[in-house]
């Protein structure tokens, strides 16, 4: 079966530092993938490229069989916006720093993208928003503005906003890294519930190792823009083969 996401020979540098180094990766539909590894190893960059937020130096990415890049004289460039939009409609993203729209209420944050994307009429969009807020345990916050919410609440709204557009692929970029330690669990619980109840493909960049283990059916360990370990969570966490993975897991378990 053809994978939903296909990444081939992807490279990217900022100046002299290599962020992604000839990286290839296939992800079948429905898989829950955790991306772990030291900071600056390229995990977040992969997500940002899939969300069409980042240029690349070489390589190709396909989502649902559609190419994200055209080969041009100056290297790969994103395909025309007209062709990119239907691809982007299949992808949703939750950012480390939430990215809620501060001038809109919580409900409006979830309703407006649905309406502008024409995935729902106004009443349907509002029903969907309330349903998701209910799921997030935030039904009473619908009329609030984001600045009145805690970090954990903001992140749950951001998750609801992304889910409302019903993407096939959800990208979570360190969704709990900016949170107060006491607020981390409320977001992780929601993520876990969502992961268990949908057949969405999910990519999660995280430093929460025990959560990665519970959440994922596949774990990728990144180092210097390469994937050095790829396997089911038990294998990667209990019997890592690469010395870099072993060292990283030893250090992060000391931190916990």
């Amino acid at each position, binding site marked *: 079966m053809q994978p939903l996401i296909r990444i081939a020979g992807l490279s990217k540098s900022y100046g002299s530092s290599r962020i992604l180094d000839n990286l290839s990766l296939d992800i079948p539909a429905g898989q829950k993938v955790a991306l772990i590894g030291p900071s600056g190893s390229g995990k977040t960059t992969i997500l940002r490229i899939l969300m069409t937020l980042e240029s690349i130096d070489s390589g190709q990415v396909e989502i649902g069989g559609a190419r994200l890049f055209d080969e041009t004289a100056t290297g790969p460039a994103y395909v025309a916006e007209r062709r990119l*939009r239907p691809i982007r409609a299949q992808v*949703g993203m939750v*950012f480390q720093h939430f*990215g809620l729209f*501060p*001038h809109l209420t919580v409900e409006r944050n979830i309703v407006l993208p649905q309406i*502008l*994307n024409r995935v729902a009429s106004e009443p349907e969009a509002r029903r969907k928003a309330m349903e998701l807020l209910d799921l997030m345990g935030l039904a009473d916050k619908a009329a609030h503005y984001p600045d009145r919410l805690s970090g954990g609440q903001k992140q749950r709204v951001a998750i609801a906003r*992304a889910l409302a557009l019903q993407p096939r692929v959800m990208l979570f970029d360190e969704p709990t890294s900016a949170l107060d330690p006491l607020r981390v669990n409320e977001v992780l619980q929601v993520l876990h519930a969502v992961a268990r109840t949908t057949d969405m493909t999910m990519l999660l960049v995280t430093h929460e190792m025990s959560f990665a283990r519970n959440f994922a059916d596949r774990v990728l360990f990144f180092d210097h823009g390469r994937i050095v370990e790829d396997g089911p969570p038990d294998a990667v966490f209990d019997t890592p083969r690469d010395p870099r993975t072993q060292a990283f897991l030893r250090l992060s378990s000391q931190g916990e």
Partner: protein
Amino acid sequence: MSWDSHYALLALPVLARGLWITIVATVLSFALAAVLGLLIVLAEMIPSRTVRTLVRGSEHFIRGTPLLVQLFFLYYVLPYLDVTLPALGCGIFGLGVHYAAYLSQVYRAGIAGVPPLQWEAARACNLTRTQTWVHIVLPQALKPSFPVMGNYLIALLKETPILSSITIMDMMGEANTFGDLHYRYLEPVTLVGILFLSIGLLARWVTGTVYRLLSNPV
């Protein structure tokens, strides 16, 4: 020289006529400036070097030459090129374009103040470029611009007496003519000052109230 209240009372209806022109000129040229200023900023986003250079160039030209020279050009020179505009039209156009160049800077600062994450979040929500501008960026960029725009509104108001130099009978023009007629300027010119101060305060109160309403949405 002492204050003559009877003479001041005689001047008032004449000044009221000029006040009307002052207010009309201020409101219309500020509206023009607000719209044109935004168009200038948006035009600079067009990915064409020619358009950008042209817009930037005219903007620098407008800010770099005195308003009086621009108005004289519009009113006294353009007719030689067979373009004749009524004086008030020239005045509103001149003031509007001049202040558009300043307001575009205010808008630019407001837009630069919208964090990159807002653009990225809009893209992650698959909004089009236009939708991102209209629904996400501009509402956030305009709000902090508002107090500065209020200052420019009052600056523009205070600059309207310059219109009397191209024969427009604004408040200052009326006061001047009235003074010429009676060889006495103390009362009309003092009243003009008081009237400017009053509408200036009124304008400040209105913009302040609007800003407060915008900041605390119900």
